[in-house]
């Protein structure tokens, strides 16, 4: 049985290294861009950029899930998604708090990225050396997942609160309970694509398009939360963009499903029971 994800020779048009660079650069630049535009122009209209930035992180995470889980981890794909979000939430809180203590919110994403990367790599080493998984891509896969989980949570938190300040995020995202929504929405966006598409005919583009689609849904959820925290204009803008992303990628996903399926037939209504 050689279903080896990207590393094992399964077809993947996008190289994981390239995807990692796109994911990291896209999400970090996006979060900074949104935060700087918001604070420089004294508005919250650009909060939606945070949710768009999260999509890049989700793509990186979904590809890492795809690579690691193709080896079979024995406990189901959801476990690795929950691990990614568990590592991510710790990294986000730690990074934002330390940045606040150091007196500059600009340092936040960098500290988060470093902590998440190092912690994820160590978890990967533990999984291979102590628990004896012996999956060759476990270390870098877990580092990717940890960074992806952290950056996605940070992007969505920013989309809801409109700033990167620790106190604002604690008040707008944690105390209000919206963190629970983005936690599960983020988990779905990272773990669901491979869980839904796995099998011998799994294709990278179909899995990743599914990831973008679910991220669009998450953006609709953050949009609704943003209406309540930042006002109608900023929230509605986010909601509409999120819906557009979901709609476009849902159509594309359906096209890819039709491309890869042996046949797509309508079942019609349930037939009458034959005794």
């Amino acid at each position, binding site marked *: 049985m050689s279903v080896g994800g990207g590393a094992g020779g399964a077809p993947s048009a996008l190289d994981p290294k390239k995807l990692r660079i796109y994911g990291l650069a896209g999400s970090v630049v996006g979060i900074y861009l949104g935060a700087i535009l918001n604070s420089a122009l004294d508005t919250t209209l650009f909060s939606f950029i945070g949710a768009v930035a999260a999509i890049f992180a989700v793509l990186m995470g979904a590809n890492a899930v795809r690579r690691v889980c193709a080896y079979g981890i024995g*406990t189901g794909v959801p*476990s690795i998604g929950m691990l990614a979000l*568990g590592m991510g939430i*710790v990294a986000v809180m730690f990074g934002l708090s330390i940045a606040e203590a150091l007196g500059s919110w600009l340092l936040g994403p960098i500290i988060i990225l470093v902590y998440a990367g190092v912690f994820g790599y160590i978890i990967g080493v533990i999984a291979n050396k102590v628990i004896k998984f012996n999956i060759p891509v476990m270390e870098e896969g877990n580092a990717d997942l940890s960074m992806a989980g952290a950056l996605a949570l940070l992007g969505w938190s920013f989309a809801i609160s409109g700033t990167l300040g620790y106190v604002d995020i*604690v008040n707008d995202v944690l105390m209000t309970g919206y*963190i629970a929504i983005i936690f599960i929405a983020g988990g779905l966006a990272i773990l669901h694509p491979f869980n839904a598409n796995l099998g011998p005919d799994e294709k990278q583009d179909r899995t990743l398009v599914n990831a973008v689609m679910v991220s669009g849904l998450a953006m609709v959820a953050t949009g609704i939360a943003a209406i309540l925290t930042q006002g109608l204009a900023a929230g509605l803008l986010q909601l509409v963009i999120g819906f557009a992303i979901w709609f476009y990628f849902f159509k594309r996903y359906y096209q890819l499903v039709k491309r890869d399926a042996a046949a797509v037939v309508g079942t019609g209504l349930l037939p009458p029971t034959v005794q």
Partner: protein
Amino acid sequence: MTGFDINTIVYILEIIVGGLLVGIGVHFVPVGGAPAAMAQATGIGTGTVQLAAGSGLTGLLAAGLMMSVTDNLWLILASGAVGAGIMIGSTMLTGSWIYAYAVGAPFASAKVNYDPITGFSQPPYVAQGTVGQGIPTICFVSGLIGGMMGGLGGAMIYYPLFLINGNAALSAMFAIGIFLVNAVLASWNIQGTIEGFHDPKFKKWPFAFRACAVASVLLALAAVLITGGA
């Protein structure tokens, strides 16, 4: 950022012990996964992480509720353990009703010949082609112990976090993060399904102990550095 004193070391130790309790507790829970959902294996028909997270989060809620009326450590820990125990117990009980009355499967373990608690013979009741069905007494007892350990661990992580940053929502989310990392590492160690402490796979727990210890140290060091914000 709080100053580093003897209390900080105590907090770090509490979080590490909490993480280890979660990691070991997962091994006690009879996880059946998809085969159990089809009554072809012993245990509860879902994955390790879902069960551990379910019981752990109930434990967190119970501990948080107790913490709002008292700051006695023992009462808070007991509340967390009992809350998680009730959650996993009611899950197993209602699951058993479905196995007994809807699926109609006799409860039998395929890992032991005689139930260590009731002494009943098991092999005659294991259907051909399956690895046991339902939740036999030994699995139920083991699951209760596991759930209570998970709740105890969750409460033990939540308590120092709340003392450090004084923010309930932040402590709860951070505790969930620590909880999930330990639960997933433990479930990777089990690799699929387990019946409880009588299962041969249970002997693998030292690996999870070491893995969770390393992870918990790193998480605890981050946890004591964060502040409560507002």
